[in-house]
């Protein structure tokens, strides 16, 4: 088996199944009545935290690829990102159905008045165009550069997701802080790389013009 085959036939299905494990566990526990005293709170919290974890995993792929030089890891990025969107949708739907009884005015009031819901809803809304344009067809239609630019929105989603978690916590923000630190490192790494790249480009063009003048 070549490496491509290994990735496509073994690793990809394995990652797919792994992403389904949290949902499967929640469904199993719901059916067996082991979600605790406040099952809806458990469902909401768990689907929310898995959205954030998978978002973080999505934006960790590129730095890991750079560090390990394992290019095939990029194969998993779309799938993990779409799973983040899936958990985000379930999280939102549980809230909208059980907390807001599918009433749009109640939802709107929350979005306007509650900052943690404003940022949480925005984080999910930003993922909608990304999920839609995640197909090969859409990459072709938009063109690689524009597609890349659009998909930078995932950074905003991750930052807003962490903020949503932070603002919801009653007292102990140590867990949100851990997510904030990880997202900070992943985005900071990109910033540093972008600056280095720009400086290098500048130096190169300066050298090139010096050469042509000489």
């Amino acid at each position, binding site marked *: 088996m070549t490496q491509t085959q290994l990735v496509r036939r073994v690793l990809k299905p394995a990652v797919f199944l792994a992403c389904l494990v949290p949902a499967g566990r929640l469904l199993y526990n*719901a059916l067996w*009545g082991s979600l605790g*005293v406040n099952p809806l709170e458990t469902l909401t919290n768990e689907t929310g935290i898995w959205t954030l974890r998978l978002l973080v995993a999505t934006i960790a792929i590129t730095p890991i690829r750079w560090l390990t030089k394992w290019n095939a890891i990029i194969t998993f990025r779309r799938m993990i990102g779409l799973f983040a969107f899936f958990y985000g949708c379930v999280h939102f739907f549980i809230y909208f159905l059980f907390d807001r*009884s599918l009433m749009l005015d109640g939802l709107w009031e929350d979005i306007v008045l509650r900052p943690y819901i404003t940022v949480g809803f925005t984080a999910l809304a930003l993922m909608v165009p990304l999920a839609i344009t995640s197909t090969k067809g859409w990459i072709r239609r938009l063109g690689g550069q524009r597609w890349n630019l659009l998909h930078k929105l995932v950074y905003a989603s991750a930052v807003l997701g962490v903020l949503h978690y932070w603002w919801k916590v009653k007292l102990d923000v140590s867990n949100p802080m851990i997510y904030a630190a990880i997202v900070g490192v992943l985005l900071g790494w990109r910033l540093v790389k972008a600056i280095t790249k720009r400086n290098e480009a500048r130096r190169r063009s300066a050298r090139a013009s010096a050469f042509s003048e000489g």
Partner: protein
Amino acid sequence: MLIKKPADIRESEVTPKDWYLRRREFIRVAGSIAAAAATVAVTPSLLTAAEATQNPNAYRFPDLKKGSPYDTTEKLNSYNDITTYNNFYEFGLDKADPARYAHTLQPRPWSIVVEGECNKPGRYDIEDFTKGIALEERIYRMRCVEAWSMVIPWVGFPLSEAIKKFEPTAKAKYVEFKTLVDFRQMPAQSEPNLQWPYREGLRMDEAMHPLTLMAVGLYGEVLPNQNGAPIRLVVPWKYGFKGIKSIVSMRFVESEPLNTWKQTRASEYGFYANVNPEVDHPRWSQKTERRIGELFRRKTLPFNGYAEHVASLYAGMDLRKFY
């Protein structure tokens, strides 16, 4: 040279026209299927949670006076609900922590220091503190500031009966309570999550109100440690955090005491903490609540449904200011 540009959208990706025209119907049907699936998924766990399993080893109070006119007739939450979902930060921040870790608390021997503006201050053993007062059952709603609620059959006595014994003076305008501080008995007190001891307070007329209860048990049995053994406050028209647990001190004072949650974050938690659907927590709405065991939220009632008994205590007060 003419290069043929491919169509932006392939024919196969276009939604058929009749599907498109029926899109609203599709969304409705999909929505109700998802709702039904979610309901089916959650309901069994709610039914399981409703089964009461009391502690067979606990002391049961004999001769309890039952059927208080203040009792609610709503469905009781199970013993399991009430004793495994607790906010008691002295044992950890997770609601499952108190049931897991509160076994280190020793509710006997126990004494309560009575001090401040009264004629009979002193250190009272809990048996003396409650001597001569008949215990009764009170079935109250409990509304947490986090917007969930339960119905709990407490065992206790009106706080007013205890207060009368200590003869507060005219200077006693408020009463302040403190929880035990002992990190060997309350391990999470070794972490500075809150400033220990936990403190709470009531205005004298609130403390003397017949609804205000000192609880020593629930479901006819002695209070489990995680619910604030051996003695705790229950003020059913206020948010749950006013119900200070494992009380070791009661002080009569002239000015308003500073309660722990107000001290921790005054913009979010006040001294009065009356249940009020009109005054939101800065971060979330207080208009509705999730009754533990129910699927959908219900409306929160002013003063948690006890307005007819207590609203007059706050006549003329701006409850937005005194939240």
